[in-house]
């Protein structure tokens, strides 16, 4: 302790000074934590909520597929993923009702995101991961899937099918875009 801290009055002052210093230390540390912590958190969490609109993509060969039969169709798709741009192939299940009418299912299971497969013998969609089974009209027949198969936005122009690929939140009864 300082030499001049011997008298009670000085001692009080000294304690005041020390408390003052401690408050400033706390305040400055808090400000530093804030000015670093807040950017660091938004740096990690913010980009998750950014999504870029993806337009319709042509799925070639629609004119040639048979009507009323579940058909697997693939299409190339330029996926923009942060600093990557990747040529990805997506698969959809298409049921052509007429030359200008179709149902397009996402091939992603609504339970936990595996890829469902069409069982020709059984005429059902079956998920290989946890055994969810969907009928041809997309309804859940059995298994843990919480909602019917997801349909995708599409349009048919000049006999060609255009699909807008989207991902939906899995494991919930509502169809929520992510």
């Amino acid at each position, binding site marked *: 302790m*300082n*030499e001049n801290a011997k008298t009670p009055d000085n001692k009080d002052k000294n304690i*005041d000074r*020390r408390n*003052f*210093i*401690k*408050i*400033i*230390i706390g*305040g*400055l*540390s808090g*400000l*530093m934590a*804030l*000015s*670093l912590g807040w*950017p*660091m958190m*938004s*740096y*990690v969490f*913010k*980009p998750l909520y*950014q999504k870029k609109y993806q337009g319709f993509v042509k799925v070639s060969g629609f004119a040639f597929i048979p009507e009323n039969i579940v058909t697997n169709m693939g299409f190339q798709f*330029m996926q923009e993923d*942060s*600093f*990557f*741009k990747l040529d990805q192939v997506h698969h959809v299940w298409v049921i052509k009702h007429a030359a200008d009418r179709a149902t397009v299912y996402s091939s992603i299971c609504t339970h936990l995101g595996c890829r469902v497969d069409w069982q020709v013998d059984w005429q059902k969609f079956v998920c290989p991961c946890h055994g969810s089974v969907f009928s041809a009209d997309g309804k859940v027949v059995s298994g843990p899937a919480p909602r019917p198969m997801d349909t995708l936005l599409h349009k048919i122009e000049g006999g060609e099918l255009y699909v807008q690929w989207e991902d939906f939140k899995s494991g919930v009864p509502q169809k929520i875009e992510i």
Partner: protein
Amino acid sequence: MKKPFLSKLNTWVNERFPLAKFLVWSLHEEIPGGASFSYTLGSAALFLFMIQVLTGLWQLFYYVPTVDHAYESLTYLRREVPFGWLIHGLHYWGATAFTVVVGLHVMRVFIWGAYKKPREMVWLAGVSLLFLTAIFMLTGPILPWDKSGYWAAKVGLNIAASTPLIGSLIQAFLQGSAQVGQVTLSRIFLIHVALLPIIMALMVMVHLIAFRQFGSTGPWNEQKRKKTGYFWPDQIFKDVLVAFFILLLLIGLSAFSPASYTGISDPTDVTYAPKPEWNFLFIYQSLKPFKGQWERIGTLGIPMTILLILLSLPFIDRDEKRNPLQRIFVMSCGAIFVGFILWMTYTGFTMNADGVIQGQSSFYQQSSSQLTLLPLDSKDVEQRQSIAQGRKLFYQDCSECHTINGKQNGLQGPDLLMVLSKTPAPTRDWIKRQLISPQQHFAFTPMPSFNYLGEKDITSLLDFLQALSLKEPMVINPIPKKLSEDGHLESYKAGKELFRTIGCAGCHTVTGQSMDTLGPDLVQALSVRRPDRQWLKDQMVSPNEHFSNSIMPSYGYLHKDQITALMDYLETLEVKSYSPSSVQKVLSQEKQNENFQQYNGPLAQEDITPANRIVGEWEHGQVLYKQYCMICHNPDRKNIPSLTPIRRDLYRDNADDFVQQIDPIIQNGSPRTGMPAFKDPQMLAQAQIADIEAYILHVNGVDRTQIINPGIKPKKFFYMIGVIFIVMSVCIGFFCWVFSMLRR
């Protein structure tokens, strides 16, 4: 009464872990002479180290250490992630601040004599930390794998490889593959983000534990030592205050002076002149007096000597006196040492591209009295061979820094044709000395010594340079001038080879059919125009005389034998009969060259090319722009749109949108206007196109490095923190004042 929760938790923890004891040990320390701002350097270094660890770790959320995506991931992080600019800026400027603070810390300890008994361990651990810091600074800049990073790796590895005995072993360990590439980057990455931080953290602990054992040294003045202060909270207060201002400074630097983007590395690009980071400039400078084999004295010897001197300091200087005034000799050694480093760093900074310190005496003072180059008799076969060898050597060893086209370049060395055409021209002797010991002429030139070349090679180079100065390019393979069986000159074969190799085939076909090429098909053109030899020669040497807007380059640099050979070759082309339509096409193509059409928007091609995703470096783009674009896009060409300013319909405020507009034009060119497709690997690399795009944006007032998603805009963020600090200080001051008033 129930104890409060915190107190219960405190008891619970301390019954199981010596937390309170540890805190007492680490915080409750008496400081002889009281707390001082001059003792804050150590804690500032610790604070900066923690900043580096945090921001470094945080960058790993986005950065990937691959040669094809490292730079892209970093530009994404800096431009598109909220506060990415801050995290990267803090790491970048934090490293610089760390170097400065550590340097000052070492100096402070040196002046206070704090390395003396019993604190040798503190000093030794500290020196090892300094050494680790240097390795951090060497490996860090490599990671973006941009131009400066690539060259830092390349040069750094070569220096490591020159270590006696174990050099090749170190190189094998760091390089990991036949060339500097992906494996190298992976290893440097591993060293920078995993190995070094672990070792550093351990050494920091050793440093602190050793420090705590004996505490602060305090002032050397006995009188001042009587007063004591406490580490907690007196010294901590000063430490935190300094730390806060350092943080504020770093945020300010990140906001107002962000790290530059040097564009993606392109190993084949010789127009880029690498220079080390500022903290190694002194080594870069001090190795210059050493030549050839001795260069490693500079690259390795100097750093190692510094390390050894520092390590042995407490054992050499065992005098107990700590007052600097009583240690004149040691202090002056230290001052000379620091002065040397500062001076070398300064000269490294001020060096211009020609390797000449600004204000240094004129280029040829030494040689003015000596003989100029002798005329060279190029009919001498032996001399011709020598010239050819010299030409080969030039492109092997010199062309990285020098050009020979008589134009200003943006390289490290001057254009040699310009040098040779100066009066008085340098003599053979002068050039020879320049090759063997450049520092003899220019004390601080970055030009390396070529004394490893044999006498014969040097003569060849001199012959080549001499031939250059006569503006008579040499012929590599003398063309035989005898008639072949089919009546043509034998040289047409050489002409055919030349047609293929010097670039004619890039624009012209010789099939007789209309092709979609830049120049007309020559069989067609010849059959329509039927030019004489003189016309052909003129067309090769100065194409613009015939077609004022032609983009055909001049081939005037060819030897006259080579031009003859080309003409001989063109004469062998069979001139067939053509339908009027094909004749029409040739004529119309020529006409099109005359009346340059206004360019009408990009071609319909939606290819996503890498160049528009790379943030280029506009400074380097400027160099490339002069080489590749200015030929056509200059004010003399009235019909070709200027790019400064660019047409309004191509202009965009947003850097990425702007690039999307101009990229397809540069990539694909336009057959309509005769603009070549620069995506052709023969023309430009994607990295170079990105640099040119950055330059075009720059001259149109758009910053290619524009931050898209800053979180909070950099400058605004800096002001915000500053204002919060001021408001907070005022509030604390006010409340404490009120509180003390109430107590009275």
